[in-house]
């Protein structure tokens, strides 16, 4: 039977959700900057967009501090970045990965 401690489950799920929100926020920011550079945002739109992102910053910081998950979110976020880097590297540098021997695990016959 699988035993899950309720506290650690909450902690894990909350960390995951907050991290994903951060990732989405990054994607939004990048888009916002593209628009900014494209010159198709008025000063007023820029301000509204920036304000919204700032409010999101504050909300996220508050949630993280409130639940004591600042460190675990940072860990997970970095872990996700590494995974993404790896996937991108696989696309750009297939040769490096082509003959990677699979990890057979530490089993003993």
């Amino acid at each position, binding site marked *: 039977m699988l035993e899950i401690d309720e506290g650690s489950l909450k902690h894990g799920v909350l960390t995951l959700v907050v991290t994903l929100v951060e990732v989405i926020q990054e994607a939004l920011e990048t888009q916002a900057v593209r628009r900014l550079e494209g010159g198709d945002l008025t000063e007023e739109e820029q301000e509204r967009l920036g304000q919204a992102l700032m409010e999101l910053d504050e909300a996220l910081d508050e949630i993280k501090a409130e639940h004591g998950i600042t460190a675990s979110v940072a860990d997970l976020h970095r872990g996700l970045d590494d995974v993404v880097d790896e996937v991108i590297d696989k696309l750009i*540098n*297939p*040769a*490096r990965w*082509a*003959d990677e021997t699979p990890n*057979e*695990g*530490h*089993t*003993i*016959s």
Partner: protein
Amino acid sequence: MTDSTFRPPDKSAPMEPTRNPEVSLSDLITVLLDKGTYLNLDLIISVADIPLIGVNLRATIAGMETMLEYGMMRDWDEKTRAWVRQSVARHFPLAEDEEIVAKMAGGYFHEGWTKTWRPGSVYVTNQRLVVFRREPKEILWETQLAHINALRLTDQQTIGSELRTRLLIDTADGVTTMLSASAPGRIRELIAQQQPHLKTPRHLAPAAEESSQLSKHAWYLEHRAGGTLWRGGTVTVEEDRLTWRAPTDARHAVNLAWQDITDIQLTEMRAPSGENKALHLTTHQGDIYLGLTQPEQWVGLVSQRMLGHGNSKEGSDAGN
């Protein structure tokens, strides 16, 4: 903004490496878990019926991959071959009496209702030529060597505007199939050795080339403490520069703006590309040697780019 750059007082003193575990612990753990792999656990334990083929195999595993790619397996002793057979056969289905001759990364150009490359590994055995994908397991394409009527190499422009040499294979069923492989020339050679009657012209004329970026496999001569070493990688001609990079390197080991190159010529030198001549670039960062196929064509190409960027190439016969 204040200048917070740390300026060390002992400018000329060499840096000392640290063994302080507080600094190096995570690196040490990475190394001991991922590297130092003279032995791999599964080799020594799971492969129970091959007792302790270990260090000498694992230690040279990288070298073996290269040797396998170049089809040098026949030079190995029976035990090593048995191990390779077994380790490969764990995921690649071999027939009775079938032996792997070479294996390399590659793919098969699938022309169904859509035209797509299907990537996998290209295997040359003593019986077949196979494009195989390990995950999920599938034979993407295969032919008996006996069914091959002709085998040609051709240069093709990829979507990424790179120039790649492909294999064109005419089979007995009247179909021509295109394969990619990391060393297509080597496949042609290995099959020609086994099927001496085959028509295998060395190379077709490359397709007309007008793109701003092209690249191909090239060997770069690196100077090390013990001597020199040819390293395999990719040379790329870009709009404003020439680069070379090995797949395991983080960045380009050669990264030259056209203005940085003062001269290019051919020099007598035998690189693993098989040609007797290599490119010799004189640059602001020292002499650089690159070994690749069709070196003459590349001298022309590079000279042209240099001229285009206001470099006078000494001894160039450009008559314009």
